[in-house]
């Protein structure tokens, strides 16, 4: 799997992502600088977490106007796959490559703890290695993970099956109003969504930080294994 990681000023989880991609795919990802105006030949582009431009103004807003975003749009149009995690998800929504927006957590505090996600479908490039409705543990680390969208957008997302991950409790039960099961207060407890063509995925938590038993588990590994499967068969 040929993957590339996009670095904006203030990106800070690119190393975590590189470790995870290397570990699961066996191949080092290419690091791409936000000013680049051409992309190498790639299967997958990843927008990792961080605080691009300090998350000043709105999370992801300024990075969404970086020169590389034009290349990313072209890459998607040509059939490429994109994963945006945390700040990467925020950037993808600000660039309108994914619907909705991410607001300040309901608690108004940064949340750094483990949470649980439910895999809503396993027939996608990002989730094929999970069972359907599998529940997995993942690291959360964000201040703005509260997913909002208009009610039309939400019903379109639900109708088209584009909600990929939802926050749940350890038993897999979703409860939008429970501050433990849905810590940011996301609409429909949404943690991750897909684009209409199912090739762009954005999610708030960090599967890349749980790919090693030494660091507390391998719960995030299936995401990367799914992508490897997609590109290498």
């Amino acid at each position, binding site marked *: 799997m040929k993957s590339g990681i996009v670095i904006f000023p203030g990106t800070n989880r690119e190393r975590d992502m590189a470790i995870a991609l290397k570990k699961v795919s066996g191949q080092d990802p290419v690091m791409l600088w936000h000013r680049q105006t051409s992309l190498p030949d790639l299967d997958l582009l990843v927008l990792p977490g961080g605080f691009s431009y300090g998350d000043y*103004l709105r999370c992801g*807003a300024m990075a969404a106007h970086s020169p590389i975003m034009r290349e990313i749009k072209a890459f998607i149009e040509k059939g490429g796959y994109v994963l945006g995690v945390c700040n990467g998800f925020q950037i993808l*929504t600000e660039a309108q490559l994914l619907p*909705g927006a991410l*607001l*300040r957590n309901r*608690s108004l505090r940064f949340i750094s703890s483990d949470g649980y996600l439910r895999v809503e479908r396993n027939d996608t490039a990002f989730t094929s290695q999970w069972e359907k409705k599998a529940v997995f543990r993942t690291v959360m680390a964000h201040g703005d993970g*509260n997913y*909002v969208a208009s009610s039309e957008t939400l019903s379109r997302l639900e109708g088209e099956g584009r909600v990929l991950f939802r926050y749940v409790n350890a038993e897999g039960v979703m409860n939008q109003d429970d501050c433990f099961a849905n810590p940011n*207060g996301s609409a429909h407890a949404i943690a991750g969504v897909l684009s209409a063509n199912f090739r762009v995925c954005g999610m708030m938590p960090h599967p890349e930080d749980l790919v090693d038993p030494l660091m507390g588990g391998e719960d995030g590994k299936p995401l990367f294994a799914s992508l490897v499967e997609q590109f290498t068969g």
Partner: protein
Amino acid sequence: MLKDGVLDPQGKAIEHALHVLGFLDVENVRAGRIIELETAAKTQEAALKQGEEMGRNLLANGVIENFSVEVIQ
């Protein structure tokens, strides 16, 4: 400013804090952002137009926010 209908967690928290402080008759608190800047635009209209462009392109997120522009000489 967040659009009507978008829940404003910050505004809600501020409202709560104000009530705790004893400002009991305050309600519908909404928190927004204000950005002041200087421009070399020659006319009032040009400045307004520029402000609106900046709002649409970067300063506000149309999905969740409204904005308005005011020119002060």
